[in-house]
């Protein structure tokens, strides 16, 4: 039972014997790099880069479900990528536009 399931996964049209598995797997590298940058100070984040990451993540989440073979590995990496991009943008916007407003009541 378990062996046949593993076999099915191994021989899947988007399985590890195909490029459809390895391309998204390397895309995870970019998402993980972005997670590593969560500790980076927001001044060092780049708007264009994070916007590119967010847009790619969202659009590709849909793309991964309309291609053949349908690619859940690609889907999950793009959801992760979109989420990390949104979080980084949130940090950057919070720092650039709202941190001053928070400091004011503390000074009074």
């Amino acid at each position, binding site marked *: 039972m378990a062996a046949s399931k593993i076999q099915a996964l191994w021989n899947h049209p988007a399985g590890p014997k*195909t*490029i*459809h598995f*390895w*391309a998204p797997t*390397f*895309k995870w*590298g*970019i998402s993980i*790099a972005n997670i590593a940058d969560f500790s980076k100070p927001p001044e060092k984040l*780049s708007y*264009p*880069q994070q*916007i*590119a*990451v967010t*847009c*790619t993540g969202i*659009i*590709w989440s*849909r*793309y991964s479900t*309309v*291609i*053949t*073979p349908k690619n859940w590995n690609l889907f999950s990496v793009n959801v992760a990528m979109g989420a990390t991009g949104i979080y980084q943008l949130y940090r950057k916007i919070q720092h650039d536009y709202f941190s001053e407003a928070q400091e004011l009541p503390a000074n009074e």
Partner: protein
Amino acid sequence: MKNKFILFSFLIRLIFISGLNSEIPSLLAICSLLGLHLPTIHSHHCPSSHAALLRYIAKSMASAFRAFLNSPVGPKTTHFWGPIANWGFVIAGLVDTQKPPEMISGNMTGAMCVYSGLFMRFAWMVQPRNYLLLVCHASNETVQLYQLSRWAKAQGYLQKKETDAEKLITNNPRNQD
């Protein structure tokens, strides 16, 4: 349809740049010799005048554009917008070529090189085949490899080789540097 489009833009340029208005029939003959088939031109629809040819070109370009708009990988689908979003990486990379090489992350750029190489193959294998994605990742591969070379140069990986070679040629003792 794509071949036709390319051929027509080429024809227009030829006709207007070199003033070959009277040479249209021979141009068409050359096209057929080169194996560029224009079935409608060879048939009795062949435009007889310059104006008729221009009308024909305009009509064909419009239909080529419509075909592009409605194609299964056209701008009404995600197959078009996915690669467009990925151009963001290429543009970000191009912007970074203007920044000092100390800013480049070797790990990230190296990962990008492998990532784009893999996605070129992916773009070819996926159904429907995605030429836009292929071009995008070929461009990204180029930009990222250039960035990687800048990074390597700044780290001294490429410099060291040169000085070693110099040492061999001039037979300088090693402790001189």
